[in-house]
């Protein structure tokens, strides 16, 4: 009884709002087609494009991260190379400095030796000159003594006298 009444209410409501099977089924088919067409032609292209863009952005970000890491590594390597070069340069400078000091020392020693040699040679030459002058002086003095003696005594001296006098004079000069 209740079932009949319930069905009657449903039937009356459906009739009042124009709901019947042919129209309802037609609308179900129509809506299903509309939904499928909208999905295929309205959302799918946008969703595909958005997904594609999302992937590309993710890839881009990943690449950017990679590039950043690479840059960091390169920077580190550059710094290392720079530090090494710096250290090497410092070492070279130190070595050069040491070499220069060594060369200077050697040259100084050489110069000192050369100067000493020059001085010695000069000394030798001076001594030789002095000796030559002394011998010249002795000879001259001897000659003068002989000449003076001959003049004072007014006699002709024999060669022996001359030799003796000269030797004597030179002995006295020495």
């Amino acid at each position, binding site marked *: 009884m209740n079932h009949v009444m319930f069905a009657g209410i449903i039937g009356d409501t459906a009739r009042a709002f124009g709901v019947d099977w042919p*129209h309802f089924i*037609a*609308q*179900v088919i*129509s*809506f299903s087609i509309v*939904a499928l067409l909208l999905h295929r032609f309205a959302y799918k*292209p946008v969703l595909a494009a958005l997904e594609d863009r999302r992937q590309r952005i993710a890839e881009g970000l990943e690449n950017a991260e990679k590039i950043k890491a690479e840059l960091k590594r390169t920077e580190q390597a550059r710094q290392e190379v720079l530090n090494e070069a710096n250290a090497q340069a410092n070492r070279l400078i130190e070595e050069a400095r040491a070499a220069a000091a060594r060369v200077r020392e050697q040259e100084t020693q050489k110069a000192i030796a050369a100067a000493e040699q020059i001085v010695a040679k000069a000394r030798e030459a001076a001594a030789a000159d002095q000796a030559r002058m002394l011998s010249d002086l002795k000879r001259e003095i001897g000659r003068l003594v002989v000449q003076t003696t001959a003049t004072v005594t007014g006699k002709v001296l024999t060669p022996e006298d001359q030799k003796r006098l000269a030797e004597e004079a030179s002995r006295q000069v020495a």
Partner: protein
Amino acid sequence: MSPALRTKLGFNRGGITVFRSGLFDALAMMRLIKVILVLLLVAGLPAAVWGAQEAVLSEAHTDPVAHVEDHKAEHVLPAHAVELWRPFGFPITNSMLVTWIVAVGLIVFAQIATRRMQDVPSGLQNFWEWLVEGLYSFLEGIIGQDLVKKTFWFFATIFIFILFANWVGLIPGVGTIGYKGPDGHIAAPWFRGANADLNMTLAMAMVFFLCWTIWALQSNGPIGFLKHLFAPKGETTGLLKLLMIVVFLAVGVLEVISILFRPVSLSFRLYGNIFAGENMLEAMARLVPGWLGSILIPIPFYFMELLVGLVQALVFMLLTAVFTMLICQHDEEHAGAHH
């Protein structure tokens, strides 16, 4: 309370309230609060609309001028769509015609917008991308990442199609252009708001019901689906367990009744709002005689109808999305609670 909701609210098995910590809970809570807020907002609006309409209609009936008009124009909007043609036995109504105009319009718009896709979108492409992507993110926030991939086509159609169908129904000419009857009134308008036809809203609700059943069976399996409806939740032992089995069996029967009633509530809510809106606009247009009154008076109500159109599209989509989430996320949430 459904298990998904119990988990979201932080009730664990055995009925002891424990708010699980972690990001997932915070997100789930925010999601739920968002849905509740939107539903509260939209639940209040139809009441306001009906209130305004009733007030205006009662005013119209007490107005002596309106009485005269009533007599002259006893004509009211028919509650159902009018059949225009029946090619090969397939009935084509005026509301179906508007359905197809809206669908073709949307497809053409989307095709134009996405014809030359740019990496930096602008113009129509930007708008369409904003709409689709915004909707996708919104639904993803409610029903989750996995479910949205499977169901987006349906919910997007529900929202976008209902929204534009509602708005297209407001264009002057819909319901007023058509074949004249012997009494001088439009007997068979060529166009009728797509959702001002209960066949259409019921069709959408039934298609959803079918999809909901398929998605529920896919996520839970037939046994899981039945267990989700009727099995006792929580861990109890002894006599209490027996009691729980009886209680949850009864709850399951109520749940099934509520599920079966969903297509009715969904379809009547949308149909009622849109059909009432059209009636209200017509009543407003007839309120003051003369062409100026019939143009000026309905204008504020047009803005309200624009809002009602948006809100009803949102309500239909949100309710269907939440129903889907409640049945499909059961296993996932349950498994999450175990960890």
